């Protein structure tokens, strides 16, 4: 793989900063009721999406999760169309039909965030299978959390990828908690990457707060998949600094200590990485921050100015091949 270039190092920071600030703005907009519903923020986990997606080509495929904004931004998603989707606008990625948990851009290989834990894993396998059958060397990444390692369909997908040597990378974002349930109580394993042994695929565990470590491990896994070496399970040990979703604070539930959160915050990649960049003389992060703010100002303005979809469009787009009377009218 070789070491990342200076431009790549800056790009990693720009991407992580974009994700962090996108999410912080989303929280503000949810709290101001400009975004309906709830969202699941990727705050704290930025190094994972960035390190993995920067190891991919534009034509590679990802399947994402309920906590998907970071993956989508890192895969090249347009913040304007994402923000518009979150606000339920007609210009959003999904024309207002999906919202936070379903953002997709097939042209960028983003086969959708997903509201069902683990459900994207077999879909990623299918994309990988299609690529191979069509003689293309595309790779698919299935993102999922620690909670999904106990979901049957993820294991079915890992087995399918293993027996058919599919070019898939299973990226497990182990942030320690499935909502309130600690993975320590839900799995006998210290190291979730040990799950890979059951499918005779390489299982690696990396520091998910270190974008360079994630990028190096992901690059190796992607290269192996692309070369026909089959799937890899890549556990990225990370943490979310915020609640499971925006409404969590209001619920007042507690399942982790302030000390634990603080300990992880000291490893915040949005603190450690820019400090390292400055130290190395690569870039002044403040310059990048300005660029990111401008991009997000534009995204929010675009979303705010965009029209809401017309109510009568609600029945459109269900079928690629429409028929009269379908979906049924007169409800």
């Amino acid at each position, binding site marked *: 793989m070789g070491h990342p270039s200076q431009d790549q190092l800056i790009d990693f920071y720009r991407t992580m900063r974009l994700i962090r600030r996108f999410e912080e703005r989303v929280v503000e907009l949810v709290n101001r009721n400009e975004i309906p519903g709830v969202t699941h923020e990727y705050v704290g986990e930025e190094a994972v999406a960035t390190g993995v997606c920067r190891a991919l080509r534009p034509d590679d495929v990802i399947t994402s999760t309920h906590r998907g904004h970071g993956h989508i931004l890192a895969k090249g998603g347009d913040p304007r169309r994402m923000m518009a989707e979150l606000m339920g606008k007609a210009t959003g990625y999904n024309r207002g039909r999906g919202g936070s948990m379903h953002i997709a851009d097939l042209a960028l290989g983003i086969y959708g965030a997903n509201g069902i834990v683990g459900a994207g894993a077999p879909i990623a396998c299918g994309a990988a299978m299609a690529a191979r059958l069509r003689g293309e060397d595309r790779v698919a990444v299935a993102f999922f959390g620690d909670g999904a390692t106990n979901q049957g369909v993820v294991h079915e997908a890992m087995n399918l990828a293993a027996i058919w040597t599919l070019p898939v990378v299973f990226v497990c974002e182990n942030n320690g908690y499935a909502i309130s349930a600690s993975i320590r109580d839900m799995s006998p394993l210290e190291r979730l990457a040990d799950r890979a042994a059951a499918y005779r695929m390489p299982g690696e565990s990396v520091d998910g707060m270190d974008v360079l470590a994630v990028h190096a491990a992901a690059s190796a896994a992607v290269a192996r998949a692309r070369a026909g070496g089959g799937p890899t399970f890549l556990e990225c040990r990370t943490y979310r600094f915020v609640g499971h979703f925006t409404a969590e604070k209001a619920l007042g539930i507690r399942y982790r200590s302030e000390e634990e959160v603080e300990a992880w915050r000291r490893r915040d990649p949005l603190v450690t990485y820019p400090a390292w960049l400055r130290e190395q003389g690569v870039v002044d992060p403040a310059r990048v921050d300005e660029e990111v703010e401008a991009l997000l100002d534009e995204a929010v303005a675009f979303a705010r100015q965009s029209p809401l979809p017309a109510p009568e469009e609600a029945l459109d787009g269900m079928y*690629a091949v429409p028929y009269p009377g379908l979906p049924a009218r007169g409800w």
Partner: protein
Amino acid sequence: MRELRYLEAMREGLREEMRRDPSVLVIGEDVRASLRGLTKGLVEEFGPSRVFDTPISEAGFTGLATGAALAGMRPVVEFQINALLFVAFDQLVDQAQKLRYMMGGQGRIPVTYVVAASGARRGLAGQHSDHLYPLMVHMGMKTVMPATAGDAKGLLKAAIREDDPVMVFAPSALLAEKGPVPDGDHVTPLGRARVAREGTDLTIVALGPLVPQALRCADTLAAEGASVEVVDPRSLLPLDREGLLASVRKTGRVVVFDDSNRTCGFAAELAALFADEAWDALRAPVRRVTRADVPVPFSPPLEAQVLPSADRLLEACRACLEGARA
């Protein structure tokens, strides 16, 4: 026109589509050995990169087909048993069926699912005998259930060419039945009902495996002086509402003979349709002959009690013809 068995006709349709379009794949359990017979000979003709035996991972291979379809393939997924749809339900309805809409109309998901022995066969009991077409229709998935050999071929070919997920129910009770199959590239479009027998006094809307029994019932009633029309919807979503309504408006009397459960079953939807759209033409209450709302039991007399029967159909038709309320 040739006479073929239902399953042979369906297999011919699948083989033709695989020859026609190299993106058509077959995915499922035991499809190379072809336990069900639908996929017999396919791996020999098309090779292992078109015909995939899967592990027992119904949710997994259903999701796999979705991803492959989004990436340009046209998978045909075989489910060996009706109840496997329950195992794969999230991947069927929450993923494959919803994704296009939720993505704002992006992409196409041309997957065909075939339940290659659907409904009840004698002695298979509660977990192998359901007929789940109302569930698929309820969740908006295009669904067909051919009742003849010709439609088995024609509707399967149409389903494979459709750019949306389509569920094909091939009732086990019909798989060995012979019938005429038109020569050439025979495709039956979705959304058109078939009038299996014309009549003027009463319409029986018969679903899938019940069509032959409905035709025998019409014979019996003809001997009693009643002219009975038998309509086979065959495409359940899209449904040929106008075709069904035309028959009911003509006869003014209708019995729905449905192989799904009583409550919230397919017959309930048709009864509502007729009440909404043909009320003025109805000369008797719409009647439903359905399954009972219990799992299909094992013992033959219990099983017969629960499944929709020809006797109860005859009774319902006679009551309807008299205009008497049950």
